[in-house]
């Protein structure tokens, strides 16, 4: 233990001097060869994902030309992707930092249930939105404090949150489905609310994606996230407050869950304690397929969103062709393996 730390301390000032410098060059022009190589590699990976998506679209278009290629179906796929998509953007940040958040599904359930109680609904649209977001942030805060300052392993801390948030959601609802009665909330999920043919839910999803991409790729916060995931000790020595960064990341994931919960309330017109079932697995799988490293240090919001779209498109094609759910699950597993293998071939990451 003492051996590595002593030389590292000596290198500390060097890293401190180098950190901001390399950061500037990256945001300024991106002229350095390693940076452009990284960009190119990311592009190959993204292109291969887009290739998979195009391939799926071909399959869909060939098997069910009328139903699959209709505008209403594209709207449907994007709408269904938006809830899990927003969760996945938050998850991408957490995984990039070397962490994991197993509680996302449970947080979505708790937030959606808390935001649809009779008491909350008295405050109308704003009450529902506010409650969903605050509950998401609150759960994220607990996760973050436990992991960053309590020294708990993310897997365990968020597993505990999964159990207790689901339990609390069940306690609030007593297993009942809570119907939303606020017309302005319900209307948001209807066809009349589409802006230029784009459902409002999809607009939120797009906004979260763009902001997520900017934050991860164009801000210090994003670079710190990558640094913490790459080597937390080096990041600490480089002057990054690793603990605070981790706290922020779980807060961010909680925030995304809160937003997703609100979208789900709009979509389903109700809150139920079974909401968000197995979102954690879907979000992790989408992020990994997208090219985010499970061990941390590399993350891509674009890839994650493409991963989500691939999953939803598969589901859609299967449903349109009226295949059994057993077949769907087998194919889903096979496609995860195939997608990861294709990426490995095309990107040759060390």
């Amino acid at each position, binding site marked *: 233990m003492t051996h590595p730390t002593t030389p590292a301390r000596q290198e500390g000032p060097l890293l401190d001097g180098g950190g901001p410098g390399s950061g500037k060059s990256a945001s300024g022009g991106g002229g350095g060869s390693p940076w452009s190589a990284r960009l190119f590699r990311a592009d190959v990976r993204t292109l291969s994902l887009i290739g998979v998506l195009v391939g799926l679209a071909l399959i869909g278009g060939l098997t069910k030309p009328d139903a699959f290629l209709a505008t209403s179906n594209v709207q449907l796929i994007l709408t269904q992707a938006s809830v899990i998509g927003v969760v996945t953007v938050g998850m991408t940040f957490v995984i990039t930092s070397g962490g994991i958040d197993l509680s996302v599904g449970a947080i979505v359930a708790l937030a959606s249930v808390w935001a649809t109680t009779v008491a909350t609904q008295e405050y109308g649209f704003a009450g529902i939105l506010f409650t969903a977001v605050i509950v998401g942030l609150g759960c994220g805060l607990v996760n973050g404090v436990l992991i960053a300052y309590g020294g708990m392993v993310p897997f365990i801390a968020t597993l505990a949150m999964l159990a207790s948030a689901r339990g609390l959601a069940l306690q609030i609802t007593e297993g009942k489905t809570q119907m939303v009665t606020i017309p302005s909330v319900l209307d948001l999920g209807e066809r009349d609310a589409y802006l230029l043919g784009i459902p409002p839910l999809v607009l939120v999803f797009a906004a979260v994606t763009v902001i997520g991409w900017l934050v991860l790729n164009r801000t210090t916060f994003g670079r710190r996230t990558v640094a913490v995931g790459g080597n937390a000790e080096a990041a600490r020595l480089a002057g990054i407050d690793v603990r605070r960064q981790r706290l922020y990341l779980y807060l961010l994931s909680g925030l995304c869950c809160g937003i997703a919960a609100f979208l789900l309330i709009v979509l389903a017109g109700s809150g139920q304690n079974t*909401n968000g079932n197995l979102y954690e697995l879907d979000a992790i799988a989408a992020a990994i397929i997208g090219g985010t490293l499970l061990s941390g240090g590399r993350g891509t919001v674009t890839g994650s969103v493409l991963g989500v779209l691939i999953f939803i498109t598969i589901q859609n094609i299967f449903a*349109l062709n009226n295949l059994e759910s057993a077949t769907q699950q087998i194919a889903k597993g096979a496609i995860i393996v195939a997608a990861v293998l294709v990426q490995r071939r095309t990107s040759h990451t060390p």
Partner: protein
Amino acid sequence: MSDKPSLPTSATRRRLLFGAAALSGGAFLTACTSNEPKEGSGGQAADAPVADDKPGKPVTIGFAGPQADHGWLNAINVNAKERAKKYKDVTLEITEGSNDTAAQIGQIDTLINKKVDVLVILPADGKAMTQAGLKAMRAGIPVVNLDRIFANPQAYRCWIGGDNYGMGLNAGHYIGEQLKDKKNAKVVELAGLDNLELTKQRTEGFDAALKNYPNVKKVARQAAEFTVESGQSKMSQLLQAQKNFDALWNHDDDQGVGALRAIEQAGRDDFFMVGGAGALSAMQAIESGESVLKATVLYPPTMAASAIDLARALGQGKGIGGMAEFEIPSSITLYSAVVTKDNVKQYMSTGFK
């Protein structure tokens, strides 16, 4: 070994008692009007002691059920508690629900140690909980097995539960009758969780009923997961895939909330929908007649109230009203009534949230 023979046994029993023990979805364990049991109706019937509302010997009933994580199971608990309250001679020992087989076995052990007179068990998993039922029976505590059946008939004194096959059958017949004059009628099925046996039984019943109507064809089937979210998601895809059809059967009213939302979002009203289970929201929608939901097929949670009645009769050593026998039956399969606008008022009080 214990598994295989039990299936045919219970099946024949069900067939025998299917008509005999038909219960109206609602209030009382009513008089039965079937022909079969009347074979024995002679002089003895008058002598048979029958459990009625009058207070009798005090009975302590232990009740162990799974975690009430959805509306139907919650209604099971409520029905059991309220029914027990109705009788002055009944004390109900109810355990905290659990979906974990080991935890539920522990709870049943506790109830056995407390020496309750009768046990009512709704197992989280019928087959896995068989040993717990056997243990109670060996300890001399009769078991009323509620809905999810044990693998071994020795593990219970009486089984009472819903009829998943019959649910599909009645839904299919209702839809078939509505569409019998329509040429090339198309039907769509939104099933429940596909890895449950009950979903398979519902689908089998539905398909069997539709075979009676050659003009009606099932064009699509997708499985949701009994949740609002999955109902919305699967239904919107079904609507995308099937541009026109005449009827929809949805296995479960909880996921039906999501399915109705998807139908509303897609702006479709070219078909009618039949639900399943009998949730309050579904019955209200049927009564208003404004949505596509026109009927629902019951899977009555009042079975828990009936189970308390059976347990009380068992504890007091009596038979049940309307039947000639000295004892309660060993198996009762409930009827899945079709609730439509015409009879919804009668069933409204049994609707669960």
